[in-house]
């Protein structure tokens, strides 16, 4: 009798190997994808949580014809990197803190006469100062933290 092709055992083995490899590949790929999605969701949640715990307010401000300044207080529960903040005047991007024409310093004492570090802790106030040569006028200042939390616009008036 002439035997042709694979025996049942051999063909079963080929299927077995194929199935094992296919399942392994599928499991690995799906696991990786689930991990990726999970990581992305965690990052998203972290950003949202960080933002909901961040509150900043402009508590005072002024201008003298040469400079414009505001005092920003951290009224939230998260520490904020001063150099990660952006400043807008009348809706125009003025710059980032200490990135050029905007100077930001955390107040080291109640009168803000001493300069602190570059982390705005909860309850701390920082001075934001920028050259602003203008004889008179009023300007709306807004400060935005790195995570997008922003102050309400604060109007600085120079009579």
């Amino acid at each position, binding site marked *: 009798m002439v035997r042709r092709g694979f025996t049942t055992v051999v063909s079963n083995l080929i299927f077995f190997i194929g199935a094992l490899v296919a399942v392994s590949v599928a499991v690995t790929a799906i696991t*990786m994808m689930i991990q990726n999605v999970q990581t992305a969701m965690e990052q998203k949640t972290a950003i949202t949580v960080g933002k909901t715990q961040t509150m900043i307010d402009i508590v005072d401000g002024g201008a003298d014809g040469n400079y414009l300044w505001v005092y920003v207080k951290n009224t939230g529960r998260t520490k904020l990197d001063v150099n990660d903040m952006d400043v*807008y005047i009348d809706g125009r991007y003025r710059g980032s803190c200490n990135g050029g024409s905007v100077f930001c310093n955390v107040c080291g004492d109640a009168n803000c006469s001493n300069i602190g570090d570059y982390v705005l802790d909860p309850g701390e106030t920082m001075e934001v100062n920028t050259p602003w040569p203008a004889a008179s006028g009023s300007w709306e200042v807004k400060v935005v933290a790195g995570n*997008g939390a922003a102050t309400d616009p604060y109007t600085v008036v120079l009579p």
Partner: protein
Amino acid sequence: MNAVEELILFSAAVVVAALAVFTLYPLVQTAAGRGVTASQQIASRGSFCIMSVYSGSNETNIYIYGLQGTLRLEPRVYVDGMDVNVVSYGILRDRDGDGYLDARDLAYVEINAGILDGNLHRVTVWVGREVSELSVLKNGDPGNCPT
């Protein structure tokens, strides 16, 4: 084929299968890792908001802020539904320096001056397939970013 031969063949098959799996595992892992973009985009689709609009005598700047995901900054702008020329655009604050608008990045889109003329205007910005729209009357009006 007797039982012993079948057993030997089966053992050999298990070894071959194991070798194949161990060889393929890192390859599949790398391929699935490249799929990060696809799966992460599903989980965290790119989006942005309009932080502010400033219209001066020389230029009008629209400041957009990345909320999540990653977007290639190729903006199109419409004012009151009319397509307007984008003069220039760029990222002002690129936190990871990759040249894309990521979450927490800030970019500007410059269009022609004098858009804000005292009337309420609807500014629509498209970046890729994402869109953000803001009605703005004057400089300093609040944007549509969540606070």
